């Protein structure tokens, strides 16, 4: 049984079709990259999986359970975690508190006390390498540090699936490599599936993802293992904006 299954999911905003009949399967422990230019519908897709938006058509199944119309706050404890493109930690709370909050309301939240969540937060702070910043208000961190806090907070939710939205946007190559290692480490130790959304960072895609799904104008264009995707002319066209042969097609 796949961990996440999207069947013909469609989402419209007025006349605009943001997500167009997308079907996708994510298996336990997989790492998938969703690529596509701005406006391809990636963030909307994430929002639909999360429950921020309800789809206009299609179904979503998580571990066999139909979550299509489930409210967002009920999906999180099932095991769906999310980080945002522009990190949104709770600014006035400390790093430790932020991560602990993830634990309090996540998949194991019911069985954990506030203190236990705080202890768990310490462990994640070590994992992301922010040891000295435990008690600092999250609002005062650098953007990269905020991203790390968001990831740790999402991990504290003990998700089975982690949706990462442009986790590496705006980073220099060294940080990107660190992030790639971190994600791999997370997959190993936490045994979760990761769906990572990247716009065009080849480094991240090549080093990380087992499968690539390409989105274009809301629809799924390509869905295949990374090796094939990297040499697929359709994928290259999406990146370059024109077919690899150099002929400019009319749009």
């Amino acid at each position: 049984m796949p961990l996440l299954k999207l069947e013909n999911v469609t989402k419209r905003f007025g006349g605009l079709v943001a997500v167009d009949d997308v079907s996708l399967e994510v298996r336990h422990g997989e790492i998938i990259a969703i690529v596509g230019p701005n406006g391809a519908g990636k963030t909307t897709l994430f929002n639909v999986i999360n429950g921020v938006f309800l789809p206009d058509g299609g179904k979503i199944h998580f571990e066999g359970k139909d979550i299509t119309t489930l409210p967002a706050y009920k999906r999180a404890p099932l095991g769906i975690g999310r980080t945002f493109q522009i990190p949104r930690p709770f600014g006035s709370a400390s790093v430790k508190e932020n991560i602990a909050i993830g634990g309090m309301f996540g998949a194991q939240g019911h069985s954990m006390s506030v203190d236990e969540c705080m202890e768990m937060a310490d462990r994640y702070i070590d994992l992301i390498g922010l040891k000295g910043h435990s008690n600092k208000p999250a609002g005062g961190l650098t953007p990269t540090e905020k991203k790390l806090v968001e990831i740790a907070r999402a991990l504290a939710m003990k998700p089975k699936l982690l949706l990462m939205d442009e986790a590496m946007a705006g980073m220099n190559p060294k940080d990107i490599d660190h992030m790639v290692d971190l994600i791999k480490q997370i997959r190993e130790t936490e045994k979760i599936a990761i769906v990572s959304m990247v716009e065009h960072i080849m480094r991240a895609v090549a080093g990380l993802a087992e499968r690539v799904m390409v989105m274009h104008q809301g629809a799924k264009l390509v869905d295949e293992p990374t090796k094939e995707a990297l040499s697929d002319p359709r994928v290259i066209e999406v990146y370059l904006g024109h077919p690899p042969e150099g002929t400019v097609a009319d749009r």
Partner: protein
Amino acid sequence: MNKTLTKYLPLFPVLAGYFLLFLVGENLEGKWQLIAMLAFYCAVGQAFNLFMGMTGYVDFGYVAFLGVGTYGMAIAISSWPDKGLGLWLLVIGLLMAIGMATLLSLAVGAVALRLRGAYFAIATIGVNEGFRYLIEGARLWNGSEGIIFTAQLNTAFGREFANVLATYWADVALFFIAAFAAFLTLFFLRSKVGYALTAVRTDEDAAKVIGINVTKFKIIAFIASASLAGMIGAVSWALKLTYVFPPDVFAIHYTVEAIIIVLLGGAGTLLGPIVGGLIYGLSKYYLAVILPGFQLLIFAPIIIMIIVLFPEGTVGVLKKKVQGTAWEKIIV
């Protein structure tokens, strides 16, 4: 055990402070009314803080909960003074006050708490007036004439004791309510409820994605805040004054004061509303000597300044300063 002690450490100075305040009132000649007023503002501030401070939503109709609480007690005393219930009459009155306030908060919350930010404020702005005009319009509980129950209180307790109840024990009860409000605040802050509300206050959409049922927690804070207000009204307005009059107990004036107190002191903190209550109460009392009736005019611009310059309030600023030091454990 040690953990609990550390967690609730900040409560001890607060309780000590209230006790000290009480002693001052007891022993200083003629200052009891001032002390009672300070206790009132601290209590109202803390009660209001439970909702506005924690969730970041403004309930402009807040005084309605004080008002219905007053009615709860008033109805109890005026209806059953001759049943020989003794002090149980007051317990019933208190329970009715809490009950009515809770019911009203559920009714208002059912509509208003589904709404975001500005719409919530709009929904609540007429609650106090609306309820007042319901009472007057439908002539509930004597309508616009209100209820005067001095005579009934005398019947229930005898003239002398009734007098002591109204002039002394009503105010003492207020201290207990204020202490309870402090405990409740700290309890929230240290529990999942408090953290959930922090998340809701900061970023409601992110909170949902984390798994927080924002509506549930907003309702919890709303009801807690409302029922405390009901208790305060029952004691500080009904029992103390022995009458209830709709235009008095539903006046938006008190919501304004509550807002001032919470913002001045520090929204969402334990000490904030207490500090705010003390500052506001003392200012009002001493201003009344030189510039009577001016206090709102003086405080309203101060509120604007606070919102623009330091929205965390006095205690909020203090918290930042003591971060990393030992004081961090007590300035909460």
